[in-house]
């Protein structure tokens, strides 16, 4: 039976979940090195306690350890987001004006995401960027699926309004 003490199994668990845990932490802390430190500590705890934690609850376990570690950290930085440089092809072709407009829009979007309440931002980005399912987010955050839907809705409703700022 696969146990977490088996290096191969642990590695697989790490590759599956570490990145999304790191993102989850970043969406709250806004600090890449802090997020990575906590991710490392959380998985280190899992590794040390591999005999006590069942494979099925490994993801919940590292999220919980990480959440606990984060409780003591009050400082929050702005969550910075990078947009892919790749330009999107449109039917009208790409014009310099178009690129400029896109950049302005992205800056406005980034700012609007930063201004979202933390709870909405975390859920929105976990869904959108990390592609986690609502049910997964609900489980990891210890909230209901309905609460996830509500937060996504509120985030979308807030974000769509930035369209008006762009001519």
């Amino acid at each position: 039976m696969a146990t977490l003490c088996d290096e191969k199994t642990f590695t697989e668990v790490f590759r599956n979940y570490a990145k999304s845990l790191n993102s989850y932490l970043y969406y709250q802390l806004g600090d890449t090195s802090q997020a990575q430190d906590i991710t490392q500590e959380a998985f280190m705890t899992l590794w040390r306690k591999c005999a006590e934690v069942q494979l099925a609850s490994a993801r919940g376990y590292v999220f919980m350890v990480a959440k606990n570690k984060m409780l003591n950290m009050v400082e929050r930085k702005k969550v910075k987001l990078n947009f892919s440089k790749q330009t999107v092809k449109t039917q009208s072709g790409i014009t310099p004006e178009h690129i400029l407009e896109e950049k302005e829009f992205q800056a406005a979007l980034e700012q609007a995401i930063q201004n979202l309440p933390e709870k909405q931002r975390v859920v929105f980005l976990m869904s959108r960027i990390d592609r986690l399912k609502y049910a997964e987010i609900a489980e990891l955050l210890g909230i209901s699926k309905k609460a996830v839907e509500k937060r996504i809705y509120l985030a979308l409703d807030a974000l769509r309004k930035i369209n008006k700022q762009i001519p």
Partner: protein
Amino acid sequence: MKHDALLHKWFNDELTDVELEEFKKRQEFKQLQKIKESTDRIEEIEFENELVLNRILSDKEKKNATPKVRRRFLSSIAAAAMLLVLAGVLVNRFSNTSIAVSNSDTSGELTGDFPDESNYILYAQSKIQYDTDSWLTRRDVKLEGKAKFSVKPGKAFQVNTSMGQVLVLGTTFEVSAYNQVFEVSCDEGKVSVKTQEQKSYTLIAGEQLIQSENKMKVSKINQEKLEGFTLREVAEEIEKVYDVKIEFSTNELEERVNTSFVTDDLDKALKTGLGSFGLKHQVLNEKLIKVTDK
């Protein structure tokens, strides 16, 4: 803006063509679509996956990591509030995220951490059980045997035993457990104890509660409260507290009573502890007291 299933299906790219046509008719569609397309271009947060993994896998402490037998107390316990619980057998169901730690060793102690860095020392022939998934919201530990806990500040921390429950109200504490005796002592902070009979007691630093069979003793800072003690046992308690010897000129000492006495005034203690049951005392010297029923 409308909040319904269609919105979430759209957001998760799960719309059928027909549904999409329907969704496109919405007033907010264009704004939403623009947001969604732009967020699609947000890059994933950078994470040095392999570097972190290697650091963890090469962790030297790993080998001693799982609960290990140790014959010394944790030094950190000294500063912590301490709570001692002695209890009997406990039976409970396991959930799938439940963790059970047993120490089947006959003499050694097992130490370990809870997910939030609270830790425990598990004594010989003892077992604890807790749930990892709910730890953040409910710090419940089931205890069978004897253990000590040092608890990080946070949500309530509760120890359940077959003989009663201990709830930590303050910051840090420690627990241990024996068969058929329920014992809680608090060195710092504040704990609440609920016995099997649903009686609640709050202990502050320096206070202790011991329950065995039908007897209960609560040692408060300057008072000792006894329930179900015979008069002879009450006298023995007074002897222990004041380091004196009590002699009786009566044999009517087997009556079980509920009483209490102060711990800083021998005369008062004798008056309330024994005097209220018709026993009179006479201090013969500093170390010797005579008690009669006349």
